[in-house]
Every structure is written in structure tokens, then in C-alpha cells.
């Protein structure tokens, strides 16, 4: 039995969104010899573009105004455990799939020149990773979700470990074990849900499953272990700065822009609707952790001497906003959290690419090694300025929309909550702009900086694409929020309904 969901599309767009990049990745892997490197790059770019192209019809044909799952695909997969290949998107997962496929194109392009060793494996890892991530966002079956969720770790582990910085092995293993611990506990929770729901792995069927508060809290703990590590929330965030710092630029971009979103998405897809009572019961705890992330990690970011580490801490702080928004249980908060996820995807990707641009030239991430970059790289400085502003939440950029909505929602809930949340506007501006001042402004710091060359064509368009995205989302977020409305309303209806 496949459940009440019936296939609704002619072309399996979701399957294409998952398997086109994976297939392209496997093809690229075949070009593993060094003399095929150029071919591998081009094939990877074509694969990434094709992967992005097949997600566009999802947006074009998406019906706004319904919370039903769309583009549903349902095929029996493992009848032994009633596991089905069940895919579908709603207004919450669709933007994330688009974001992921878009970022993949940029990442492949960003690694064009920098990556010179084992090019095919590098490109293949990113393509396969992209397909698996789309799978995470599209899966509506618990086991299918878990398979994608876990399989995603493998390419990222290799990316960090093979192409990363000096301390890459430590960072890769820490990253893998940390996230594995969380997901294994989630596996137990999934199987437990299967067992008490009378043999169903369908996530949507679990939404209707009555559960006692005690069970809900235990399941909450298991899901919390999986998703809080991914987000990451304080105090399980310590893997992220290491992983970010050691990963190659592309790896950092994917980690910040995509992988962290999986955590937020998990809370929305599993925790809130399946465990509404536990979510309400523990919302104080979640909000407290989110505020600690926002304020405390904001201060930690302030004192980082390493640019990548600083942006990593900034990511944790910004993701604190997402979890804060989700656990306010208001439409404004949840939508704000979602917009924040998308915006953070663009902005953090852009900032890591900026650091990548500098690192490729100077092979240093230390803020102290720079100074006065604006004098030698004016075009680059202009781009970086815009992204720094977006990271600080300047109105008109995408960073503002989400933060503003979440702050508004928190003020409605409680003034002091809103007050603390709003400190991100100050702290974010402080650490981002202070970094900007030290790296880009001032006198030319040293001979290396004086010798810097401005952006190449490729880098220019790479960052240019992100500028467009950041501004579009900041000035006119309506196309995105419209897609979300119905699904968010439906989500809140589930959260409001007690299962006791």
C-alpha cells in the first residue's frame, strides 16, 4: 500500500531534481585521469546546470494557495517494511530545493581554477551531494528521508577530508561523528514511530498519529539530537567552526548554504507537526537555546581572528534566528525563519566565496594579514560591502526581511524576547562591519596586499549572480513568501492541534 498520496505529475520533476545531479556526478567520476580534468569540469558544469534546469518547472507549475503536497511520486520500494519511494514538495521545501540546485551551479563554477588535484572526484562529490540534498527536501517517507539525510554526509566528509586545510582530518571526522550521533538517535525514533503507527513510514500519516506527552518528549529528544546538530544550535555547534574553517571554499559554501538548512527543515517537517505538544512544552527551552546562539555566539564571532571562523559563528547566530522563529508558533515567526534560511543561504555562500577569493590569492584567512584591500581590488570591495551589509541585515537586502519578521513576531510574543533577538542587528553589524573595516579599509597592509589582482571574469559573475539574488529577495520577497503562505498556515494548524 502506498497511502493516500497519488502521483500528480506527468514528468517526475522531483526524481529528475534528485537523480540528474547524481547521474552527472557518476559520469564525471569516470573522467578521473588528470588529463581529463578540463572535460570533467565542463561535464560537471553541464550537470549542475541541468540539475538546476529541472527544478525550474517545479516553481513554474507550483500551485500557490494549497498546502497539499505537489509533484507527488509514489512507488513501492521495500514492501517488507512498507517503505515507499514517496516524494512531494510543498511551499516549505520548494524554495530549499531551488536554493540548493542554484548554489550547486555556483559551487561547481567556484572550484573551476582552484581545484587542481583530483578534479573529477571533487566535482562528482558536489553533484552527488546536491542530488541527495534535494532528496532530503523532497522525501515524504521516513526511511527515504533518513537514507538521503545520512548519505549526504559521505560526500561532504570526503570533500572536507581530501581538499580541506591543514587540520582537515580532525574536522572531517568530528563533523561526521557529530552528525551521525544525532541521526542515529533519529533512526530509533523513526522506527519507533513506525512501530506504534502500526507499520507506516509515511511522514504525513504520522501527522495524524495520537501520542502521549511522555512519548512525544522522548521522540522530541531524538529528533532534537539529529536536527540541532545540523542547524547547529548552541551547545552542539562546536563541529561547525572546525568544519567550515578546514573545508575548501566550495565545501564551506555548501555547508553554510545548504546543510544547515536541513536542520531547520527537519524541525518544520518532523518536530512541529508530529510532536506539537512536546514542541509547545519545550518551546521555552528551544527559545532559550536560540537566544543564547544569537547573543552569545554573536559575541564569540566578534573576537575571531580568522575570517572563515568569524563567518561560521555568524552562521550559527543567524540560524539561531531560524529556530527562534519556528518555536514562536506564529505565521510571522515561521515565515520569517524560512525567509531567513533562504537569505542566509545566499549571504553566507557569498561571504564564503569572498573569503575564497582572498584565500586563493594570499593563502591566508587571518584578518591580521590583510588591510586596505579596497585599494587594490575595488570591484571586489564593492561586492563584499553589499554582502557584509546583507549579513548585518540592512533593509533592501535579503538579510533584513527574515530578521525583521522574526523580531516582529518575538516582540508580539514578549517584549524582552524581541529585545534580545534584536541585538543581532547590532552584533551582526558589529562583527561583520568590523571585519570589513580591518580587511578592506585602511592603508594597504603589506606588500602581498599591494600585489593583489582584482576579480577575474568568472569571479565577477559568480558574485554578481548572488548580488542579484540577495537584492531580489530583499526588495521584493513576495514571490517567495507567496509560495510559503498556505503551507505555513497548514503547518501552524497542525502545531495548534493537540495530539494528547
Amino acid at each position, binding site marked *: 500500500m502506498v497511502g493516500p498520496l497519488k502521483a500528480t505529475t506527468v514528468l517526475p520533476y522531483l526524481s529528475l531534481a534528485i537523480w540528474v545531479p547524481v547521474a552527472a556526478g557518476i559520469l564525471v567520476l569516470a573522467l578521473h585521469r588528470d588529463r581529463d580534468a578540463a572535460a570533467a569540469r565542463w561535464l560537471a558544469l553541464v550537470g549542475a546546470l541541468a540539475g538546476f534546469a529541472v527544478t525550474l518547472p517545479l516553481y513554474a507549475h507550483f500551485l500557490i494557495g494549497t498546502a497539499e503536497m505537489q509533484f507527488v511520486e509514489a512507488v513501492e520500494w521495500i514492501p517488507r517494511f512498507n517503505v515507499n519511494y514517496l516524494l512531494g514538495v510543498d511551499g516549505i521545501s520548494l524554495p530549499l530545493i531551488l536554493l540548493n540546485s542554484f548554489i550547486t551551479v555556483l559551487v561547481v563554477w567556484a572550484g573551476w581554477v582552484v581545484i587542481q588535484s583530483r578534479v573529477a572526484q571533487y566535482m562528482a562529490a558536489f553533484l552527488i551531494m546536491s542530488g541527495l540534498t534535494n532528496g532530503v527536501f523532497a522525501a515524504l517517507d521516513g526511511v527515504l528521508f533518513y537514507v538521503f539525510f545520512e548519505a549526504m554526509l559521505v560526500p561532504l566528509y570526503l570533500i572536507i577530508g581530501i581538499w580541506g586545510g591543514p587540520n582537515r582530518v580532525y574536522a572531517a571526522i568530528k563533523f561526521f561523528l557529530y552528525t551521525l550521533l544525532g541521526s542515529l538517535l533519529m533512526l*530509533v525514533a523513526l522506527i519507533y514511530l513506525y512501530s506504534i503507527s502500526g507499520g507506516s513510514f509515511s511522514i504525513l500519516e504520522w501527522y495524524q498519529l495520537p501520542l502521549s506527552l511522555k512519548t512525544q518528549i522522548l521522540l522530541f529528544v531524538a529528533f532534537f539530537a539529529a536536527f540541532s546538530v545540523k542547524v547547529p544550535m548552541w551547545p552542539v555547534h562546536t563541529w561547525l567552526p572546525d568544519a567550515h574553517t578546514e573545508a575548501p571554499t566550495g565545501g564551506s559554501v555548501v555547508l553554510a548554504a545548504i546543510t544547515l538548512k536541513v536542520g531547520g527543515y527537519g524541525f518544520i517537517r518532523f518536530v512541529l507537526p508530529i510532536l506539537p505538544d512536546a514542541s509547545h512544552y519545550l518551546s521555552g527551552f528551544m527559545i532559550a537555546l536560540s537566544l543564547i546562539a544569537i547573543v552569545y555566539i554573536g559575541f564569540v564571532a566578534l573576537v575571531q581572528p580568522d575570517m572563515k571562523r568569524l563567518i561560521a559563528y555568524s552562521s550559527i547566530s543567524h540560524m539561531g534566528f531560524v529556530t527562534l522563529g519556528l518555536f514562536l508558533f506564529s505565521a510571522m515567526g515561521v515565515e520569517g525563519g524560512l525567509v531567513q534560511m533562504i537569505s542566509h543561504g545566499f549571504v553566507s555562500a557569498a561571504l564564503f566565496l569572498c573569503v575564497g577569493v582572498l584565500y586563493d590569492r594570499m593563502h591566508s584567512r587571518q584578518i591580521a594579514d590583510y588591510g586596505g584591500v579596497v585599494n587594490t581590488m575595488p570591484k571586489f570591495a564593492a561586492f563584499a560591502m553589499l554582502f557584509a551589509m546583507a549579513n548585518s541585515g540592512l533593509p533592501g537586502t535579503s538579510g533584513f526581511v527574515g530578521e525583521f519578521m522574526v523580531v516582529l513576531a518575538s516582540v508580539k510574543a514578549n517584549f524582552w524576547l524581541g529585545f534580545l533577538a534584536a541585538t543581532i542587528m547590532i552584533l551582526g553589524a558589529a562583527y561583520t562591519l568590523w571585519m570589513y573595516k580591518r580587511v578592506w579599509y585602511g592603508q594597504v597592509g603589506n606588500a602581498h596586499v599591494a600585489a593583489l589582482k582584482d576579480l577575474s571574469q568568472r569571479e565577477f559573475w559568480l558574485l554578481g549572480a548572488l548580488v542579484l539574488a540577495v537584492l531580489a529577495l530583499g526588495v521584493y520577497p513576495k514571490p517567495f513568501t507567496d509560495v510559503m503562505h498556505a503551507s505555513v498556515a497548514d503547518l501552524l494548524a497542525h502545531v495548534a492541534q493537540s495530539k494528547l
Partner: protein
Amino acid sequence: MAIPFNLTPALPEMTLLVSACVVLIVDLFVPESRRQISYWLTQLGLLATAWFSLYVFHETPVHTFGGTFIADALADLLKFFSCITVILTLLYSRVYLAARGLFRGETFVLMMFSLLGMMVMISAGHFLTLYLGLELMSLSLYAMVALQRDSDVAVEASMKYFVLGALASGLLLYGMSMVYGATGSLDIDRVAVSVFTGNANRTILVFGLVFVVSAIAFKLAAVPYHMWVPDVYEGAPTAVTLFIGSAPELAAFAFAIRLLVGSLAAMWVDWQGMLIVLALLSMIVGNVVAIAQSNVKRMLAYSTIANMGYMLMGFLTANVNGYSAAMFYTLTYVLTTLVGFGIVLLLSRRGFEADQLDDFKGLNQRSPWYALMMLLVMFSLAGIPPTVGFYAKFAVIEAAIDVGLVWLAVIAVLTSLIGAFYYLRIVKLMYFDEAQDQTPLEARFDTRVLLSLNGLALLLFGVFPQQLMGMCVVALTRSY
């Protein structure tokens, strides 16, 4: 004179016995340079046995030889997989054996007799048949471990294996005699009936059960009966380690099924508690101690111990669902071990044993394809999807949760996290470290093809596990 028994169900065993005798005789007349004749005869015999195992496939259980021999779907499938496992073992180890002067008739014949023992065990309908098969298998294994007569480690390992194995056989016989005392029979079906109807003295039965379970734990390498495993794995020539670590696991699974499910199913409440302790200890000790190992063979030995702990979780449900999960676990574990040791065998050369973890350094630069195969093995052992190891863990965890043992499931996943650490270390060595030796691995064409297919099977069954899982369920439902 008419034969009083139906011989057809035992066709695979007879084929194997005949082939073993043929190889034994032919090998006497084959000159050293033509040793591959015996090798190919062995492979042919094994293939024929595998084919006959499926040819005689039994939809419903058939008893013959006065009830001492059962042929059912479970037995046929396990025999088939055991044969295939031995064929692959022999194929992967050909070059290794030749380089060490072990490419000899004795090796082949011992392997075949050991396999015959396993097949008799798998089809045992009587406690004595079971014992007979067990001893045939074990005695051949002791001899195989000591094949390298001039190696001190091998002889020591063989000695340890023999002494501890004899102890386990003693425990088994003692347990069986208790069961006999309580039920008055050694026939598995009759024991089952008397236990079920409650005619047997319960105290004596439970007393006997403790010894029987101990013997099973010894064969499965469950803690605290695991002491022999690391030493034997390390001491034996790698080819023999591969043999010990693969097919006998299937036989041990059948051994557990015949005893616990076939004859003592009505006492599941008693053995469930014992198995929980064994599973728990194996998972914890196996995984924790494996971290400290610098020798691949020892590490894989502890990994076997841990994996058998997970497998035992399948038995806890005392229903076909759980048993089929355990069977699936065993099958996939054997499939994975074959590739893992296959690569260790490829890494070894004449006069050089690649049994240190550091020998894996930079394998991705030397031979990316084999590194990928080993990567699949490691992720499969760690239970990371989309490899088959994930579904194996998934199924046994589901079995544990099904009987309400959520705490055991949580401990199982936590220990598998510890396991992931040492499996990842091999991936780290292969992919993140620089190679000390840049020469690519060399393999014969047939080894290359079959090792690749075997490795890809880990991925294939990881993406489409239903066939194999469904087959385990069908085999067990048709047999019990």
C-alpha cells in the same frame, strides 16, 4: 537392494563429498606446475554443489535419513550462499595462496570438507547430526589455520582455536545431554514437541539451554566467548581468515536457528534474556576494543564480534520477522566481509602481509577503484546508507523495538557510532593520507571482475534491498 532412504535432499552434500574425494585423488597425480587443475576441479565441484542446492529447492521441509537430516528452503538457500562464498574466497585468495606455497590440494580439500561440515550443520535434524557437522567444519578449520607449518603465529592461533573449540564442543555436548535427559530424545522435532507440551523437566532444560547457548555464542563469536577470534584472525594466513570470517558465519546462523528456533522455541523467554546479555556485551566490547587495534585483521575480528552482537538482536523477537532480519544481517555481513578481506588480500604481496592499518594509506591515489570498493565496505559495516549494511542494522533495530526493547536499540546505535569511528579511520587512511608506495594494486582478471561485482552488490542491495529481505522472509516462513 533398495536404498531405504530418500537421497535426493542430500544431493548437494553428496556432490561436494564426491568432488572433494576426486580432488584429493587427482591432486596426487598433478605435477606442481599444473596445480591449477586441482583448483579448477575444486571450483567446478563447488559450482555444481551450489547448483544442486538450488536444484533440489524444497518448498516445504523434507526429512530423510530417519529424521536426522532436514532439507527446507532455509537450508537450501544457506547452502547455496555458503558455496558461493567459498567459491569467491578461493578465487580472491588464489594469488595470495600461490605466493605462500599454500596453493595446494590440501588447502582445497580442507576447504571443501569444512564446507561439507557447514552444510551438514545447516541441514541438521538431529542433535548428533548437528554435532557431526560442527566437528567436521571445525577440525578442517583448525588444520587450515595451521597450514603454514613454519609460522609460529599460525600454529599458536591454531592451538588456541583447537583448545577453545574443543571446550565449546564439550559445552555443547553437555547441554545436549541435559536436553536429552529432560526430553528423552535428540531429534530436533521431538525435542520441540516435548518442550512445547511441557512434559520436560524445566530446571534441567534451562540448565542445558545455558550450555547450548554458550556453544552457539562461541561459534558466533559473541562476548564473552570471543577470545579466540582476534588471535585466530590475526594468526591465520589472510586467505584462511577470509574463509573463517565468511561461510562459517552462515553455518553458525543456521546452528542458532536449528537449536533455538527448531528445538527450543518454546523456551524463548529463557533464551531471550541470555541473548540480550550476549548482544549487549558483544556490541560494546567489540566496538570499543576495535578502536585500539592497529592490525586490520584484528580490527575486523573485533568488528565481527560487534556485528554478531547486532545480528543476535534479530533473534530477540522470537518470530519470523526477527529471524529474517538476523538472516539478512548475516548474509549482508558475509557479502561485505568478502570484499573487505578481498582487498586486504590484494594489498598483500609475496613476503609482505598487508595487515597493518597503515598499509591502506593513500589507496585512493594508488587504485581509486579498489579504494571505492573498500569505502563501500567500511560504510556498509558502519551502517551508513545507501549501502546494504544500513538495512541490516535497520532490520535488527526494528526487531528490537518491535519487542519493546527501545533501550537496547539506543545502545545499539550508540555503539555503532563508536564503530563508525574506526571504520572511518580506514577511509581516512585511504583518501586523506599520502601513499608511501605508489604502485597500483594488481589482480587477475577474474578476481578484478568478481571483486568489483561483489563490491557493487553492497551498493545495489543498498538501493534495492527488498529482493534479499523478501527472500529471507520467504525462506524462514516456508521452513518454520
